């Protein structure tokens, strides 16, 4: 009886939040889903446009390419950082973690404008290179895909490092010692033991970075200078300027479904809760 009461009262506590989620999250989500099939007219016209309109296909291709490259660079760089942190002394590791978290906590807007200061036509880097006489005209670091990539990779690195660090810290040092004792060189030990043992962390980090990259808005908008269009910015244009809500809703649904599909695919290989930092 007491257990039943406890169970009921537990639900009562959650009820307001549950209501909030349904009204504020599930409702609008359904609305977007609905719009993608009914605006401007009922039917699949928003989705068939994907096959018909070259510009939409280009948009998706650019988004995918930038996300894939961001994921690649973030995870490779993040792997190096996590590796260094794992092998550093306790004091040094704490300092490195603090630096990582500071950049993690700074607003994406601030960080994006900071990159403009550094990479812009009159930025630190171009001025430095010109005054050193290495180049005669400013190099185009921003307002192109390179700029977007630099900004996004910089933003994503902490997201890549944290799951990787977790995976690496969990490795038993004796296993690495056993490999060397059995005659494996440090390189062999890395490729045959260390890398396979950190594979779940690599998958988790890649998944996290890729999914977050798909919805990136601020960084491509500013560092791309309107020249590099990714899905999130395109959706915002459709909603705020051209008022084609149907197209915007279709793209939003597309991203949502892709993310869910990715998660479903990954969950077949590993425990998602473990990959995303929870204890399974």
């Amino acid at each position, binding site marked *: 009886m007491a257990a039943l009461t406890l169970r009921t009262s537990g639900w009562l506590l959650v009820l307001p939040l549950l209501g909030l989620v349904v009204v504020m999250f599930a409702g609008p989500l359904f609305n977007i889903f609905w719009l993608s099939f009914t605006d401007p007219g009922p039917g699949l016209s928003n989705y068939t446009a994907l096959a018909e309109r070259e510009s939409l296909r280009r948009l998706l291709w650019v988004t995918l390419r930038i996300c894939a490259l961001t994921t690649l660079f973030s995870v490779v760089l993040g792997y190096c950082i996590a590796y260094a942190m794992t092998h550093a002394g306790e004091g040094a590791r704490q300092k490195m973690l603090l630096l990582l978290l500071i950049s993690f906590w700074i607003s994406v807007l601030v960080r994006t404008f900071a990159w403009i200061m550094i990479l812009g036509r009159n930025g630190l880097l171009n001025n430095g290179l010109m005054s050193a006489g290495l180049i005669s005209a400013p190099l185009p670091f921003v307002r192109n895909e390179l700029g977007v990539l630099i900004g996004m990779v910089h933003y994503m690195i902490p997201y890549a490092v944290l799951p990787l660090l977790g995976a690496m810290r969990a490795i*038993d040092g*004796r*296993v690495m*010692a*056993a*490999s*060397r*004792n059995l005659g*494996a060189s*440090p390189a062999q030990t890395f490729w045959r033991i260390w890398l396979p043992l950190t594979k779940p962390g690599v998958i988790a980090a890649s998944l996290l970075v890729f999914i977050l990259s798909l919805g990136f808005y601020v960084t491509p908008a500013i560092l791309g200078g309107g020249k590099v269009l990714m899905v999130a910015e395109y959706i915002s244009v459709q909603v705020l300027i051209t008022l084609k809500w149907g197209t915007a809703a279709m793209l939003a649904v597309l991203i949502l479904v892709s993310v869910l599909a990715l998660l479903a695919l990954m969950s077949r290989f590993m425990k998602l809760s473990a990959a995303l930092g929870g204890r399974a």
Partner: protein
Amino acid sequence: MAAGTGSGPGGISIRALVKHYGTFEAVAGIDLEIRRGEFLTLLGPSGSGKTTLLMMIAGFQDATSGDIRLDDRSIVAMPPEKRNFGMVFQGYALFPHMTVADNIGYALSVRGRPRAEIAARVAEMLELAQLQGMGARLPAQLSGGQQQRVALARALAFSPPVLLLDEPLGALDRKLRIEVQEQLKELHRRLGTTFIYVTHDQEEALSMSDRIVIMRAGRVEQVGTPEELYSRPRTEFAASFLGKSNFLRRDGKVWALRPEKIDLSVATGQATGGRLSGRILSMAYFGSVLKYQVETAEQGQIEVDVDAWRGGGALPVGTAVGLDWSEQAAVLLGS
């Protein structure tokens, strides 16, 4: 010491070896000759430096000073992967993402040996370790005893001249431990490989070793065969760490006297036979032996073991008894 005279590599010579961690001296100057083919046990309490010494032999810890030589070649500066020593780690340290067969074949595989040779050797080792049919399993799918045998097979697959074992039986239950002790001993006899075995378990050390090195605070306390160490300990530490011992003190000298070497007789009237007299303080029954604590006026509490099948059962607490022993039973220490 049947295998002690074998030819081939595997003799290790340790000279004035020292290891500092900051100001802490983990190994404080050790000289030790390890004969090829012998089963040598490093025995000591935790913090005695036995594991540090093993890790230095394996190459995982640098020496602060001193030398380690394998068959008269210095290996003290050699990285672990060049030393060619097999090792069974505490907790086994199997590669969790590899099958049993891949674990066992690893040492040959990293040496670039042909597939067919590796497969043949793995099959041979699986049989030796009584793991037939388990080659395709992952370590997590095995019992503790099976994992221990995989670790052993993996360490021996490349026929190393020396096998280092770091408390390999620590994770097994008591019954299995005794079984594996016998298997290890048998394996050692068959292979003729030098075994260097680290443990804090004196029974393990006594039953398996050709020689035992008793370690204390980074130093070698005493080296000898189990029989030598048990019957002729040189220090109180050696006498009390390996087996149990009473200590008799007179005129500034100390003798060690094993409990089972004392004869206990019931005192009749005023006369008590023997060298010491006292009263039984307590008794514990261990199946094969009765352990008495006897309070004596001269030497305090003395432990006496009596074969349980001898005599007419346990004596009641408070009984007046006489204690006697033969001349050579009491060993003068510190000489």
